[in-house]
């Protein structure tokens, strides 16, 4: 505690001290401004170069694009000194010119690539932490509408699974170094210095991204309380002085599911219903004659056979993405302006469903005075989604219906009448649902993000001192409008009377209209200082940051609309109308500091620390302190190191602590939540009294309070190695270990239900996450016409629950402790029973017979029950993730191929009721010797019989796969002739494909990234839910694009 107080006071003193020096800082006169760009010997921009006017305290530092502006005294002999660690200092005597370009010598072993790190930048070679980065251009290459789907396999340390292909709702599951906690697993996303910005990173136009950096180890401690799951730093492009560059990029894509489920035909369905009837000893539903009619299709009206996927889904959906940007500026003003328009259509045949994403960005830098630079950034984004009515507003509901749809139902009769849906009316008719006849849901997300920043050189106070501050004001408007329309009637054909029976929909149209507004404000002030002393250089900063978020919402509901046509609240009935509003507030306050020491580019040392204040904890426990230290030794820079083979050789290590406070607030007080109106689709709130029942509200108790709630802490150690051989071969290796403690876990497994309490989460859980990751790259350009590369990366991250609150009565083989987060608790299958004799000889659940799964009596008590379940050693989150790509350029052609894969993951794939994938039916047990799947055990209307539904190892699938993630072929049209006359500096056409195929064990109906095996949540630590396939499937994308630069 004392340390923290001291730390905070020092920071305050430092920042305040800086201000107290202000009066002395403004007297100097400036009469001439010099600006320019600093590059390395190859012309690559160098950021962070110190520019000092010799003999004065004036100076500047180059920005990340290498530009600087500095004020110098008028006339006379003026010399500018340029220095940067790793490069030879250089002095330039100014003549008349006001603009100059300086190339620094040295740094030859490295091209000086600058990487964004927390609250600063660092030359890549001088990194001391485990940091991966990828350029925006590389991300933009994959023609995906959602950035997260392009990242799998792109760099070591990322575990990414695309679990849905739904336009507008396809964010990938994204983990840095796997899962290290039982709590929230989301990495912290920092966009242009602002953590956790509304809208996240998924929908940023990839063309706007300058850098994408991942802080994987304890160096993320600079982001303190939210860094435990890793940190992603994204910077957007800024202006560059010089000629304006105008570029266009147009893409058009066709998308289709990676796999289309093959479902039962009506004959096979009827057959399986009969088999079920036989199993449970009831009268067969279908006669042989009926089965025959389903089989031969001789009576398509009475005995139809519908392939629902084919009937209501398009084979291909269309997607376009058009981007335009303008980048340029002068020494005084630099700008980057861009716009994007993306539209994705859905697979639904009748539907008008679509998603659009519009981005407009302006990043402007103004050199207000020679020492003061002002930045103004603004982004406006609108995401618009039109989906089916609220009843099917979630695509999972549509696919649930589609997977259930009986093949003997008719989509549309030959006379045009629409057939009834599975519920027996028009309400569930997939034709109506996907036509929008059940209404539509409109989602509007509007984001306005602004950032005003100043960067102020205080070199006059002491060289290398600078003050930076920024203020961000972000607005997020959320709009939801869901109208449940009353569909037209549906029909059933009655064979006996040869007539159509009409079924009307009974539920009157209703509308839910909601809006929410979130305002985020963040203020950051940073005082930084950097100076070179001989071979040493020091860099330090202290910063203060505060943020505040206010969320308000308002929603209203009315039913009893007289017509589908007017879809606004005024047209509804006042009977049953409800409305609601709410407010949420949160805030943060943080103190941040870093001290870096670099001796001759050989020994590098960093100290990071952050004290974070979070409102999620009670007073007195609101602040957490997160320190980190990291160091590196660039052995290849030592005098004794002479190798013609190894160009760069660095070892590095880091240790530190990061926090995770992503828990729901106010867990330290007992709350009563008022329940009024409609709680869910099935439940009105409160109670009804009176002969004319009228509703009164009720209270729902929040969880029992926990006054001791505190931070989740990750203590992370990382050892790394960065090497470059033969100029072209790079090799990076990291070994890491992260122990997460104080994880908030619900201890209710140890509390009997009779207490009635949902025990508050307590900081009891411990998870250890360990692993290794490496990347290997080879890049060569043997001639002017030819260049090629090959890259690969590999991540192995394995986690283990070290402590979990489990009752002592839970047998050792069932405990989560000692197993990975999300590992399954399953019965142990031993194949299928083939004969009755074996059934009676072995312990078995009641109802078992030949063709049923045989279970192991694990505890040997002679009965099969819950005690015979055993914890698995794998979960659905892969322990191994890898990617490799290769490509090259020959003259005007270029090509890239990118494979991505995973291993050491498992999933449960089990048939559901109603309808199912053909593979289960085909493989079912019919006679002794059959071994693939059990006998039919799913009956109609979700009935199941016997113990085959137990979640057992029988249904466990190795979820390793290798996917051809992306292939791109491009042709550069050059810049001669016509292009020259059109002032086109370059133009390129390309064709690419995404998710082209994968090698896996999932069969023809399921994608290997099928969701279903949910991750544990605070309330359910070991959910075992099998994959059902009932979701919007992952998409294969075939794309053609054109990019033109003027």
């Amino acid at each position: 505690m004392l340390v923290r107080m001291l730390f905070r006071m020092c920071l305050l003193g430092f920042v305040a001290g800086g201000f107290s020096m202000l009066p002395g800082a403004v007297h100097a006169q400036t009469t001439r401004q010099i600006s320019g760009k600093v590059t390395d010997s190859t012309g690559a921009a160098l950021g962070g170069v110190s520019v000092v006017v010799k003999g004065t305290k004036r100076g500047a530092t180059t920005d990340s694009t290498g530009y600087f502006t500095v004020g110098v005294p008028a006339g006379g002999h003026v010399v500018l000194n340029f220095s940067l660690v790793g490069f030879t200092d250089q002095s330039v005597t100014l003549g008349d010119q006001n603009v100059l370009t300086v190339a620094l010598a040295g740094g030859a072993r490295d091209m000086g690539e600058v990487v964004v790190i927390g609250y600063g930048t660092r030359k890549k070679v001088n990194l001391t932490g485990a940091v991966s980065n990828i350029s925006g251009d590389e991300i933009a290459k994959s023609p995906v509408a959602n950035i997260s789907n392009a990242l799998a396999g792109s760099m070591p340390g990322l575990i990414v699974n695309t679990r849905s292909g739904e336009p507008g709702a396809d964010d990938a599951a994204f983990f840095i170094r796997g899962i290290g906690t039982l709590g929230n697993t989301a990495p912290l996303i920092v966009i242009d210095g602002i953590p956790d910005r509304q809208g996240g990173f998924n929908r940023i136009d990839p063309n706007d991204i300058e850098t994408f950096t991942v802080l994987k180890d304890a160096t993320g401690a600079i982001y303190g309380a939210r860094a435990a799951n890793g940190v992603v730093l994204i910077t957007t492009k800024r202006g560059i002085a010089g000629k304006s560059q105008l570029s266009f990029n147009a893409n058009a894509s066709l998308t289709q599911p990676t796999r289309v489920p093959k479902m039962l035909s009506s004959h096979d369905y009827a057959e399986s219903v009969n088999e079920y009837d036989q199993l449970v000893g009831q009268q067969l539903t279908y006669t042989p004659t009926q089965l025959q009619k389903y089989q031969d299709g001789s009576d398509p009206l009475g005995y139809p056979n519908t392939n629902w996927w084919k009937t209501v889904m398009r084979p291909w959906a269309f997607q376009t993405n058009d981007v335009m940007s303008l980048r340029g500026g002068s020494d005084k003003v630099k700008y980057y302006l861009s716009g994007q328009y993306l539209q994705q259509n859905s697979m639904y045949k009748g539907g008008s469903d679509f998603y659009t994403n519009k981005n407009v960005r302006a990043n402007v830098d103004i050199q207000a005075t020679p020492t003061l630079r002002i930045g103004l950034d603004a982004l406006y984004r609108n995401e618009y989604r039109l989906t089916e009515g609220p009843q099917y507003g979630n695509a999972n509901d549509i696919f649930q219906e589609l997977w259930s749809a009986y093949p003997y139902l008719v989509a549309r009769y030959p006379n045009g009448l629409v057939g009834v849906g599975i519920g027996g009316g028009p309400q569930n008719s997939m034709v109506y649902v996907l036509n929008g006849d059940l209404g539509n849901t409109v989602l509007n997300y509007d984001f306005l993000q602004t950032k005003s920043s100043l960067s102020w050189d205080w070199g006059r106070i002491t060289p290398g001192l600078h003050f930076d501050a920024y203020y961000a004001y972000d607005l997020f408007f959320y709009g939801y409008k869901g109208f449940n329309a009353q569909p037209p009637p549906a029909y059933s054909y009655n064979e006996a009377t040869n007539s159509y029976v009409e079924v009307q929909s009974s539920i009157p149209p209703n509308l839910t209209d909601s809006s929410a507004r979130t305002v985020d404000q963040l203020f950051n002030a940073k005082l930084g200082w950097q100076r070179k002393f001989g071979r040493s250089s020091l860099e330090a900063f202290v910063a203060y940051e505060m943020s505040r978020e206010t969320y308000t919402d308002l929603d209203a509901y009315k039913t009893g609309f007289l017509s589908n046509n007017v879809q606004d609240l005024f047209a509804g009935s006042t009977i049953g109308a409800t409305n609601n509003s709410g407010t949420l507030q949160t805030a943060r306050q943080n103190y941040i500091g870093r001290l870096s020491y670099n001796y001759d580019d050989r020994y590098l040392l960093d100290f990071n620390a952050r004290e974070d204040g979070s409102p999620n904890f009670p007073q007195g426990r609101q602040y957490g302190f997160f320190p980190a230290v990291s160091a590196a030794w660039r052995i290849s820079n030592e005098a004794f190191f002479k190798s013609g083979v190894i160009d760069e050789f660095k070892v590095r290590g880091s240790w530190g602590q990061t926090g995770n406070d992503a828990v729901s607030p106010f867990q330290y007080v007992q709350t009563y939540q008022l329940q009024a109106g409609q709680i869910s689709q099935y439940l009105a709130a409160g109670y009804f009294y009176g002969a004319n029942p009228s509703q009164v509200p009720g209270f729902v108790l929040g969880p029992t309070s926990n006054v001791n709630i505190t931070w989740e802490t990750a203590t992370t150690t990382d050892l790394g190695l960065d090497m470059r051989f033969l100029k072209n071969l790079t090799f990076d290796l990291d070994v890491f270990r992260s122990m997460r403690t104080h994880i908030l876990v619900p201890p209710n497994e140890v509390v009997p239900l009779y207490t009635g309490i949902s025990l508050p989460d307590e900081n009891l859980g411990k998870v250890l996450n360990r692993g290794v990751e490496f990347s290997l790259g080879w890049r060569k350009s043997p001639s002017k016409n030819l260049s090629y590369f090959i890259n690969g990366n590999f991540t192995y991250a394995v986690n283990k629950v070290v402590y979990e609150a489990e009752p002592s009565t839970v047998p050792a083989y069932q405990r989560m402790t000692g197993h990975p987060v999300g590992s399954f608790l399953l019965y142990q299958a031993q194949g299928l029973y083939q004969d009755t004799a074996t059934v009676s000889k072995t312990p078995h659940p009641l109802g078992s017979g030949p063709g049923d799964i045989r279970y192991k009596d694990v505890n040997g008590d002679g009965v099969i029950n819950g005690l015979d379940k055993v914890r698995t050693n794998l979960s659905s989150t892969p322990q191994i993730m890898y990617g490799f790509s290769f490509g090259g350029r020959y003259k005007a052609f270029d090509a890239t191929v990118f494979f991505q894969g995973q291993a050491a993951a498992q999933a449960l794939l089990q048939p559901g009721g109603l309808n199912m994938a053909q593979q289960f039916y085909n493989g079912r047990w019919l006679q002794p010797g059959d071994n693939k799947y059990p006998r039919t055990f799913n009956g109609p209307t979700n009935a199941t019989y016997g113990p085959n539904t137990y979640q057992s190892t029988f249904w466990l699938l190795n979820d390793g796969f290798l996917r051809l993630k992306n292939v791109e072929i491009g042709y550069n049209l050059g810049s001669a002739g016509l292009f020259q006359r059109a002032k086109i500096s370059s133009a390129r056409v390309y064709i690419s494909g995404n998710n082209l195929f994968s090698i896996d064990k999932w069969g023809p109906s399921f994608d290997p990234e099928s969701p279903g095996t949910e991750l544990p949540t605070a309330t359910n630590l070991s959910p075992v839910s099998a994959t059902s396939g009932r979701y919007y499937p992952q998409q294969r994308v075939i794309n053609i694009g054109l990019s033109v630069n003027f």
Partner: protein
Amino acid sequence: MKKVYIFLGLAALMSLLSCHKILDIQPTTTFSTNTVWSSPALAQVFVNEIYAEAVLSFKDGGFAWGSQTDELYSNFNWCSENTYVQGQATPDNQGSSFPLNYSSTINFWSTLYSTIQKTNIFFANIGQLDTLGNGAAITSMTAQVHFLRALCYFELLKRFGGVPLITKVYTSTDNTYNESRSSWDSTENFILTDIAAALPGLQATAPSGQEGTATIGAALALKSRLLLYAASPYFNTSNDMARWQAAADAALAVINMSQYSLYGTSTTYGRIFTDFFNPEVIFARVYGNVLEDRYNTVYRDLSPNGYNGYSAYNVLEQMVDAFQMNDGTAFSWSNPAEAANPYANRDPRLYADILTNGASFQGRPAQFWLGGLDSKLSALSPWNASKTGYTILKMVDSTYNFNVQPYSPAQWIVFRLGEIYLNYAEAEAELGQTATALSYLNKIRERAGMPDVTSPGGTDLIQKIMQERRVELCFEGHRFFDLRRWGIADQGAGDALGIIITPTNAQNTTFTYQVDTVQVRAWQPSFYFYPIPRSEIQADPQLTQNPGYN
């Protein structure tokens, strides 16, 4: 320029100094403990929620129980009833907690204790209310919550036998959990104590518009049912006559209130269930028709597919057969005249409680015959067809068109005078008071339009009362527990039977009938009680599992 610098500096400094205010944030979407327990109106809101959780209805209160007996078949297995009747219930498939909104089981160990905790929180906090001006409200609410806690424990007792009796409010600082199960008798006494505590503060009648609030009658009716169970053979192994006397007294106490009367006649019998809070109703739960709620779609859910209903619970042939001929003789398939026309001349309650083939419903005769609109071979959602050839009509207002608005108002009667009469008759019969027993038994029959029964008393009379309970109280959640307290649960565990109705003429007006097995059922002796979820035994090894479960 200088001013700008100074301003910026000051702004930055001020933001630094305002440190601690920034994180000082209060909950904005919830009420705090202090707020709730300082206002009688908010305390009432808390009580409303206890009602919502404690008063089980329809599926949870009746149909799911009926489908585990010879009353019903559960077409959609919403509560895993079929797991029980197929003999496959284990401590592992009970779940440990269920969402309140859509219970998938009727084990309810978790939800009932969660509700009991709310009652205990109420008792621990109600004292904080200022009694000045609130005295009557406090007394009334306290009495109601005592009744509701008694109701919850009775629900537990019915399912599990004796259970841990929790009266304290557990908090997160408790770390020992070694409650053990109380005996059946101790649990019974605990409930009686709560009822006694409730009675002085309860009103005789609920104010108009507040019907559904617990009253003296509700508490006395609960006592009557509890004491009847306690006197019954399965729990009263020594056949202690004092218990029967107590049961008789408890029933008579309700009757003597003279506040309730039998409602309806042989032709308006069904209105007992659809006329809200009619004079026969002692305690009931109602639903509104505006918002979709747990059970305000029952009219649709119970009705046949041909009317766009779901046929959620199908009446078994055994149940239909239990309804006598209107002359008081038993129905028999071996009587050719009766077998040829099985739905003619029956107990009028059959027509009020069960929709049978050819009976008029919503403007047309029901068509359960093979190929008919309400049959498995219907053109209209045949998967929603009744498997047995019958659906429930009791509690369904057949004048309500659920095709226009599926959210119907609905009433679930927890206690009604008809049951109390039968309770009284049974207790008096066991006490040897044949005349008294017969008079109350026959009051029930007379109202239904059935001839009186006579009996020499003893077993014969008991059998007749059992038969009457089966018919009069069908689908109301009694059969399952009656069979158990009588110790004859296996008698209700036979295979589920239905009817196959085949037309014999082209107009589909004449039929032949054939009884058919709909579901093979397995009987387990353990099934007298529900299993306690395994997680619970693991959490507190002091708890003993019910016999026959491992």
